[in-house]
């Protein structure tokens, strides 16, 4: 369970202060596929970054499985990102000079796992996404949909409890987007993983358990979808 308490984030751009989150309280449950929606600038990505330990709130706290993220050191946060979280980005964020399988292996490489073990694990995850024949391809040789599936495979390879998707379908065609969201649904239903997905595409929210809508850094409403 992820609990955000009284969360505020202020960005300073020059002399201007910009409030991304305003005293936001929100809870995400285990084994839930939650969508975070809202107009641009509503604080969706900021919320996701804070939950993922990539950014720190200006005030307020985030508890993940009861642990207060604000108390973690930089190294502990890195470990948290490595082992507990799988992050998926709109622009894939794959490393260009590494092959698909090397990109998938990366979280395990950082974790110090030996090459044989990580290769077989990475191959297994790539197979799950029908990418075993693309393992030795560089990201530039893959289509958008394939790149995003490689990125998802990378997010899953360390068996995280929580998948965070920051507009993961924002840069791929609708067919691929559907494949991605269905994969998330399957992960939640079959493997008990929790997924929080920021999206603009309301069409895709029908696969989610709950839709959390933000506006101006505050919670506007929560809708539970009828599956």
């Amino acid at each position: 369970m992820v609990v955000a308490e009284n969360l505020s984030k202020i960005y300073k751009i020059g002399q201007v202060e910009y409030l991304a989150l305003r005293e936001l309280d929100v809870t995400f449950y285990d084994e839930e596929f939650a969508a975070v929606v809202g107009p641009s600038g509503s604080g969706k990505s900021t919320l996701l970054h804070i939950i993922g330990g990539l950014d720190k709130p200006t005030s307020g706290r985030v508890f993940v499985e009861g642990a207060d993220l604000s108390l973690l050191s930089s190294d502990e946060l890195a470990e948290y990102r490595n082992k507990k979280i799988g992050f998926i980005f709109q622009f894939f964020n794959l490393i260009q000079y590494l092959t698909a399988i090397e990109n998938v292996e990366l979280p395990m490489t950082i974790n110090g796992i030996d090459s044989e073990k990580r290769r077989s694990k990475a191959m297994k995850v790539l197979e799950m996404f029908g990418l075993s024949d693309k393992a030795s391809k560089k990201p530039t040789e893959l289509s958008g949909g394939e790149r995003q599936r490689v990125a998802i495979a990378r997010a899953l390879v360390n068996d995280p409890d929580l998948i965070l998707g920051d507009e993961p379908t924002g840069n791929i065609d609708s067919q691929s987007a559907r494949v991605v969201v269905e994969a998330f649904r399957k992960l939640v239903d079959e493997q008990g993983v929790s997924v929080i997905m920021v999206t603009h595409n309301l069409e895709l929210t029908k696969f989610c358990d709950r839709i959390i809508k933000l506006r101006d850094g505050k919670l506007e409403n929560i809708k539970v979808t009828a599956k």
Partner: protein
Amino acid sequence: MRPSDTLSLSMRQLKERKLRSVLTVLAIAVGVTSIIALSAQVEGVKEGITRSLEVLGPDTIMVTLQSGMIFTDADVARVRGLEGVSSVTPMMAISVKVSGIEDRVSLIGISSYDLAGYLGEIRLFDGTIYYDVPAPQAVIGYNIGIDEAGDLRYKAGQPILITIGKRTLSMTVVGVLDEYGTLSAIQPDNSVFMPVDYVKALLRRGGYTLMMVKAENSEDVEQIVDLIEQVFGGRARVMSVKQLTSTVISITSQLNLLLLGIAGTSFIAAGLGTFNIMMISVLERVREIGILKAVGMKDKGILFLYITQGLLLGLFGSIVGLILGSITAYTIPIILEGGFGLGFGRTPRTGLGQPQAGQTPGMIPSYTPVISLTYLSIAIAVSIVVTLVSTAYPAWKASNLSPVEALRHE
């Protein structure tokens, strides 16, 4: 992250920017090359000179005169009578032309007994040594007797034409010396040796141009130098082998310091270049650093990644510099001897003492370069330290980037 994975990821990053990595490696290699190549010349010259001085022995003192002046038999007798002097070898050295040899060579009048002392040991390539009679017999040096192709130019028993001033005389070659190596103090390879009495008669001069004095005891050398200086006042130059050796060592150490200074400057340039490249590399990879942090790489993991890249650049720079430096070290003497018409290298010089009128003094004696382990280690250590220092800041900067800001970087 395992060290082997850090290493392989670093290699991948360097390979991704091949040209830039190669240029950085070359910039570092220049410093290593210059230290190794230049110090090898200085060390080689030093070793060559000291070895040639050792042949003469630490008890030897050379007494020479200013051009145009001569020592008389009385002068020789006075030196011989000084306390602590064991022997005095008077010699007559003049600059002459030999037919078939373009450059001028030294003609040295010396007794066969003294010649053995002068050379340390007599090694003959052909023929024999002359008898000490006033006859036109000559023992010629290796470079005169043997041509560039290694064939005998003059054999024992053959005549040799020697031009002294305006006179050209025919002498008989009785022996050709083995190669002694041309060194700054003695140039036996470029000299013609003849019985001293014959040379004196030939020149119609009752004297000598230099004296080789041996001390009974090498500890008394300084004292004898003082005594000889008192005898001749400012007329003569008195140099002991000991003094020469210490002068050579002090000059070469200063030269080495100078070279290290020059090489140091190139290292500063290489260091700034590396700093610049690593800074650019970090700036270019801000987003990638964000990705690595997002998937869980710790700050010190990023730091090690970039430090490793710096180390690799330093290491490759050292290896390339080591190879280029060794090649250059052995190429420099060949270029100098080839001369480019500069009058270096093979230009024969007077055997001893100051150069005679009309002869260009050789500036660089021939020698074998010596790559010293000390300078090799200095070069490698400095190049690695320089790259480490110039990588430290960019690496630290990379490790301290905020992950979310790094990911937002375009």
